[in-house]
Each structure stands twice: as structure tokens, then as C-alpha cells.
């Protein structure tokens, strides 16, 4: 096996799964490994500029909302008219996709038209456009009235082809999230020509094709071979407009057990592996030929306490929990030092993050006093839920938390749930009482988006307020943030929100953890992106 890998520029990447589907409006868009497939095959209109690498050599991005934070990808340049809220993009010429199609304005228009059609299993494209306030991308498209909805699903002139290489996109209101949203995998640009070729009468938007066969776009890689549930092989797109990728072939393989991925990278059978347990990363840190590096990006470990279920409807109980946890032990035993104590519920790398003035450090006595004040009586029926698929990481932590809480008189039982069931209860039923969660990363890189996503009450348009948190103060502040043009004021308001969130303990942030990779020491150029998917085009392999 190592024989084949030795060919320069060819690498094997192992993950717990491979893309299950490639259509971002399809059923697998929420799965990280599927996203990895999408981001490497598709190209966005704009993307964040890069920043110098961190001390471990991981490339970083310059987050923000200003034009200076972004670089053109399929769009060469853009202008914004604040009066009409219209963005005009000059598109790049001579960009060729894998199938030989040439990129032009039709592809952009097609992409938005498809998003608005909400014809896929999960309308991510529409949702992102809606978040970015693109005009007419309203919930009407999902209305119960079929005829009305069908009308609303048609793309009007909000996304307009001016000429073959110019497109105008209109917003309904000013919204800072517009450019950040365009960087997200869920608005990658399709190659219309190829897509149209593969449509069918019942599937005019080629979902079946994009999801199960190939997603045609203008990205750095072209799909070579895809055996579902097993391997996903791509070749560099030799026509890629930014130059053919240096790693010319990537075999992305499914190896469900992290220990097996670890073994493979140790023996040189793989050049890059993802999502090992912290312990496994720690174990290869000093191994020969293997490097481990990471970055504190946007991953946090949270404890979620449901505001609708006693005893957690009482802020004192929530605070008692926060004081009871032994953060040092969790960092040491759960993350082997590759984490820091969280200062708030928003990732610290996101624009708008601020350190809250309400902090909770381990203090058993205080926890006990708070519980007494709250009149807490232990019934021994609290279930601490977590995703069973992440058991090897979360079980030791959950066990630790269980022991910590027992010390202050709260008895909990562990309740690992399959990812699907966890998701259903967390997002749809919203009835998890007490949960340990390390996978909430807002894809919109902005404290405001994170607030909207998680903390604004449902009545005020909050999207996924999974603990049923509701604070008039936060809602009010967010209403201001939403339309605030001035960055400074916006940041102050966001800081106030974050103070309030920590005072209420809307979520209990435990630690911020490193997103890590283990890879061959001949592999360089690794960079972190907010979706945690490696862009293979960043890499260089000197094997």
C-alpha cells in the first residue's frame, strides 16, 4: 500500500465516513464528511483571505465583514450600492470546470434559482440566502398554500444576469452576513450546463445526479471514483483557475473507528487523518514521521440545561452546576491539555466575541450554597445526554461531570443517544433536559449569527433555540444588532448580549477545544476553515 502512496502528490485521507451525498440541498448536507466532499469539488463566489499560520503551522482566515476580509473567487470583484442594497459581481473569465464547461453568469443565476426552488431534501441554499437577507428569499417559498409557494419559488430579478460576466444580487435590507454567507459550502456555484444535462422530468434541478453521481462545479478537484460507504477519490482539476492543485490525487476513505485511523497514519498508510480522540492525538504527538497540529477554532464543549425542565429552570441550579464542574480535570483528562476554559458561548475566534464579565470557576462550596438557596432536592432522575457515536471522547468527560455533580449532591445518569435521536430531541422536540455537546459550531462566522441561531427566543425569530432560552433583554439587543451598520456599536451590543447569556447561563460553556489533525510530516499547508473541512488544495505533499 505504501508503494502507491509514495507517488508524489497523492495522499490518502481517512475519516469516519466519506461523503454520503454531494448535493448541499440534499439529505446529507449536515454531515461534516459530506461537506468535505462539497467544498473540495465546488467553488464559491468569494472567500475569506488567509492569515499567517498559528504557532502549530495551521493556516488561518481573516474573519470579518469588510471587503478587506474577502478575496474574489469566481467573482473577480464586487461593488455594493447601499441605496438599493445591491451587490454587483464582476465574474472571472476563462474558468473551466471538470467537465470542460466554462463559467459564466448563467451558472450563478442557476445556483440561486435552484436554491430558491427548495426542491431538495433540505433547502440549505435557500436558508443561507434568507439569512443573508437576499430579496424575496422569504419563508413564503415553504408556505402551506401550494400555488402561492410555487410562485414564490421562482427566481425574480433579485439575482440578475447583467451580462455574461456580471451578476447583480439584491438584498431586502442591509445585512452584514451577506459576504460571509457566500463563503459557505451551501452556496457553492454549480456548473449549470452539466447540471441541466442530467435533469429529468421529475427532477428538474438534478438533485439525484448531484447527490449520488457527481456535483459539477469549478472547484480544484474533480471526482474520480466514488464508492459509497467506502471511498471517495478525487483528481486535481488541471484547468483550475488558481493553478492545478499540488496534491494531484486524494483518496478519502471511510474508517469508522478512530483507533484504526490512528494506526494507519502511524504506519504511513494514510497521510492525513481527521477526528481522532484527544487521547489518540496525544499519543502520536511525538511519533516519528507523524505531526499533530491544531487550532482553537470554533469548537466548544457545552453543557445544555433545558429552561423548560426543572430543576434547570432555576438559574441558581444552573450556576451551581457551573461552579461544580472541575474544569481543570476536564481539560487534563478529557482533552489532554488541548483545550482552554471557555469564556463565553460564542467561539472566541468569531468577530463580535467578547469575554463576558460573568465567569464561573470551580467552587464546590458556592455550588452547594446555591443549591441550598434554590431549594434543590435530588430526585436522582436527571439524565445527562450525549451523542453515543462520540462516546470515546465524551464518556470520560461525562463520567467526570457525573462525579463532580455527585459531590454537590446532584445525582445524574448518563444517557448516550444515537446521533439521530439526539438531533431529533435537541432540535425538533427540544426536550433534552441536560446534555453534553461538542458539535455546535455556527457556520456563519459572526457572534450575531450565533446569537440568532441559538439564543434569540423562537417568538422573535430565533432559529434553533434548543434549550428554550428566552430573555427579553437579549431579544431586544439582538433586534438592534440586526440592523446595526456601525461595527463598534454592534460589538458593544453583542458584548452586552454575551454578558447576559453568561449571567443566565443560557448555555454553560465548558471548554474551547482544539480542532486537530494528525498527518505525515511531509504534508504541509494545512489550514483551518470554519466548517473544519480541509481544503486539499491548501496542501503540499513531499512524499
Amino acid at each position, binding site marked *: 500500500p505504501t508503494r502507491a502512496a509514495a507517488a508524489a502528490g497523492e495522499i490518502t485521507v481517512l475519516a469516519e465516513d466519506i461523503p454520503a451525498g454531494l448535493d448541499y440541498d440534499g439529505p446529507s448536507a449536515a454531515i461534516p464528511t459530506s461537506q468535505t466532499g462539497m467544498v473540495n469539488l465546488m467553488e464559491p463566489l468569494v472567500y475569506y483571505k488567509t492569515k499567517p499560520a498559528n504557532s502549530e503551522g495551521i493556516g488561518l482566515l481573516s474573519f470579518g465583514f469588510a471587503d478587506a476580509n474577502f478575496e474574489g473567487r469566481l467573482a473577480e470583484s464586487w461593488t455594493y450600492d447601499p441605496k438599493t442594497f445591491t451587490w454587483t459581481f464582476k465574474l472571472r473569465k476563462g474558468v473551466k470546470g471538470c467537465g470542460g464547461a466554462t463559467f459564466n453568469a448563467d451558472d450563478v443565476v442557476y445556483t440561486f434559482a435552484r436554491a430558491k426552488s427548495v426542491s431538495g431534501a433540505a433547502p*440549505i441554499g435557500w436558508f443561507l440566502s434568507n439569512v443573508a437577507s437576499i430579496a424575496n428569499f422569504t*419563508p413564503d417559498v415553504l408556505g402551506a398554500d401550494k400555488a402561492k409557494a410555487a410562485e414564490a419559488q421562482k427566481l425574480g430579478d433579485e439575482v440578475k444576469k447583467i451580462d455574461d460576466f456580471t451578476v447583480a444580487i439584491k438584498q431586502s435590507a442591509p445585512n452584514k452576513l451577506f459576504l460571509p454567507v457566500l463563503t459557505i459550502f451551501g452556496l457553492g456555484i454549480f456548473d449549470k450546463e452539466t447540471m441541466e444535462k442530467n435533469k429529468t422530468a421529475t427532477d428538474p434541478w438534478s438533485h439525484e445526479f448531484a*447527490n449520488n453521481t457527481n456535483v459539477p462545479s469549478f472547484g480544484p478537484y474533480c471526482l474520480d471514483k466514488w464508492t*459509497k460507504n467506502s471511498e471517495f477519490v478525487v483528481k486535481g482539476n488541471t484547468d483550475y483557475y488558481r493553478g492545478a492543485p499540488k496534491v494531484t490525487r486524494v483518496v478519502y*476513505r471511510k474508517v469508522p473507528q478512530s483507533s484504526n485511523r490512528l494506526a494507519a497514519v502511524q504506519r504511513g498508510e494514510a497521510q492525513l487523518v481527521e477526528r481522532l480522540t484527544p487521547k489518540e492525538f496525544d499519543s502520536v504527538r511525538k511519533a516519528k514521521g507523524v505531526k499533530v497540529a491544531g487550532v482553537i477554532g470554533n469548537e466548544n464543549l457545552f453543557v445544555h440545561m433545558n429552561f423548560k425542565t426543572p430543576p434547570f429552570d432555576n438559574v441558581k441550579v444552573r450556576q451551581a452546576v457551573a461552579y461544580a464542574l472541575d474544569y481543570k480535570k476536564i481539560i487534563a483528562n478529557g482533552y489532554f491539555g488541548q483545550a482552554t476554559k471557555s469564556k463565553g458561548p460564542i467561539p472566541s475566534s468569531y468577530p463580535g466575541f467578547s469575554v463576558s464579565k460573568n465567569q464561573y470557576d470551580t467552587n464546590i462550596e458556592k455550588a452547594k450554597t446555591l443549591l441550598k438557596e434554590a431549594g434543590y432536592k435530588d430526585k436522582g432522575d436527571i439524565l445527562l445526554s450525549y451523542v453515543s457515536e462520540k462516546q470515546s471522547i465524551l464518556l470520560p468527560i461525562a463520567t467526570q461531570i457525573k462525579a463532580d455533580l455527585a459531590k454537590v449532591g446532584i445525582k445524574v445518569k448518563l444517557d448516550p443517544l*444515537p446521533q439521530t435521536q439526539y438531533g431529533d430531541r435537541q432540535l425538533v422536540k427540544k426536550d433534552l433536559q441536560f446534555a453534553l455537546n461538542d458539535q455546535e459550531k455556527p457556520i456563519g462566522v459572526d457572534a450575531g449569527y450565533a446569537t440568532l441561531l441559538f439564543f434569540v427566543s423562537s417568538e422573535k425569530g430565533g432559529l434553533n433555540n434548543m434549550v428554550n432560552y428566552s430573555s427579553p433583554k437579549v431579544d431586544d439587543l439582538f433586534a438592534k444588532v440586526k440592523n446595526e451598520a456601525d461595527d463598534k456599536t454592534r460589538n458593544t451590543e453583542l458584548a452586552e448580549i454575551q454578558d447576559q447569556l453568561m449571567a443566565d447561563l443560557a448555555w454553560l460553556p465548558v471548554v474551547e477545544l482544539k480542532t486537530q489533525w494528525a498527518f505525515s510530516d511531509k504534508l504541509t499547508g494545512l489550514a483551518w476553515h470554519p466548517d473544519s473541512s480541509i481544503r486539499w488544495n491548501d496542501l503540499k505533499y513531499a512524499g
Partner: protein
Amino acid sequence: MTRFVARRLVIAVVQVAAITIAVFLLIRALPADPVATRVGFNASPDVYRKAKADLGLDRSTLSQLGTYLGGSGTERGLLAGNLGTSWASGSTVASEIGDALPITLELISLSFLLAGAIAIPLGMRTARRPGKALDKAVFGYGLFAGAAPEFWWGLMLVFVFYFKLGWAPAPLGRLSPQLQAPTQRTGAILIDSLLAGRLDAFWDGLRHLILPVVTLAFVLSGPIMKMVRQSMTRVLGSDFVLYAQAAGLPPRQVSRSTLRAAFGPVLTLTSILYGFMLGGAVLVESVFSLGGLGQYSVKSVLEFNYPSIQGVVLVITVLSLVIYLVLDVLLALLDPRARHR
């Protein structure tokens, strides 16, 4: 005979219909659906609603069953042979099972061959010489081999032969990562690689199967051996074998008819185990990341992927019932006494 088979087929059809409906209802009673996983948390309630409606989960169970069986619009239903589309990946369930099934069949068939190759000669020998040291050793082996869970054996073998000694390939699936898989025809790598003339893939595939096959064969050989021994002992003690000797028949003829007479119970046990292993090989499949039917079925349940669960249950049940039917036909061919039933 034909009537017997026809009758059994009719019963099997009723059984399969009953199980299809039962499983359908059972699944709908599960406490979760996969909408949240499909959409992720970066989405709004509208999106969930839309995704749910897309899966038909907003309709009544009965109407969902109707669609599943009879299809809707252009989509064909189960009655027209369509197992539906996986909710997790969007591919057809039939194609996913089509990928997973050959892997399992390859794994368990080889395991049964190996188990048989160990168990049958040993069982026969110990039946001929009861009470000898070999008999006792083999008896102990039979008790012991079945005592530890197969996934534990698998893990131990991986630990020793891969991690410690480095003799075995990584337990990462059917082929080495960098090796191009042979063109898929049957889905079984060993066969496909031979068909494609790819000896490298054949040897590599074989190497990857050694540990899983040894694990399963180890566990399976115990009961098979016990049955061979028991059955051989019975036949060896039977009057007709004695009479064949007394009539001076050539030894080849005698041992042939002995084997044939002892074969029935062994065949029965093997078939039942084989049917069980279709879904039961999951533990070994996941230790070695083989991606067979068992793993697929477990994954489907964990994902609450309704059409896949339904499909895989259907396929395994139908296969098992077919195996039992074939078994009965074989037994009838083997033994004229079984023909009158």
C-alpha cells in the same frame, strides 16, 4: 415435491408480507426521525417542516404504508419491486444493499468454508475415536471457542497480528487504501478481481479477509464440529453401516454413505447459522470495517433511516426463508424419508 415447495412459497409470501407491515409499524413507533440529522442545526423550523413533509412523515401512518407499498405518482412502490431511497444518502436502498450484501456473503461463505474445513474432519475423526486425547481437546475447543464474543476475538487478533506483529493488514476494509478496486460485477472483491484478471487485488483482498474469516470460523467451528461428531456417532452406530461392512462393500462406498447419512443435521445447523450470520456478522464486520450487510443494518437503525431498515429486514428475512426452503429441498433430495411432508 413441487407441491411442497409451492405451499412453502405461499406461506413465505404471507410471512414476508406480515413482517413487512409489522416492521413498518414498528419503525413508525420509534421515538425519533431523521429530519434533524438531515437538516442540521444551522437551519430554521421552516426548513425542518419542509424536510419532514419531504419524507412524508407529516402524513398518517396508513397513508405512508400505502405509498411504501404501492408507490406514488411516478415512484414505484415495494409491490413493484422498489425498496425505496435511503434517507441518509439519497441512493436507492436496493443499490446500497447490493453493495453491502456481497461483502457479507463473501465473508460468511469463506468463514463457513474454513469452519467446515476444520470442523468436519475433526468431528469425523473424533466420532470414530471417542474418548481419545484428540476428542477431549476438540471438545474443550468447542466449548471454549464459542465462549468469547466474536468481536473480542477480532479485537484481540487485530491487536496481536496488526498492532503488535504487523503481519496482518490494517483492519480498514476490504482492500488497501491505495489499491484500485476491481470493476464491480458481483460485488465480491475476490470474484471481481479474478474476473478482471487483477491478481494484486485478489491477494490483497484475501489478505484483508484472513483475520475476519479466522475470527468467524473460530466461533462457528465449535457448534458445527459438535454436530458433525454427534451425527457421525449416530450413523456409525447405526445398523446399516454395520450391515454394509458385513456385506463386504468397498470402504469408499461405506464411508460415502456414512457421510451422506450424517450430512443432514450438519446441513441443517449450517443453514440456520448461515441465515443468522447474514445480519449477525455485524460485530466482525465493524471490527474490521468491512461495510457488510450487518453493519449497514446497524447503521440504518442508528440513523433511524426508515427505508433502509425496512429494506434490510426484508432482504435478510427473505434470504433466510429462502435458505430454509432450499435446506428442506436439499434434505428431501438427500433423504427420501423427508420427501413425504
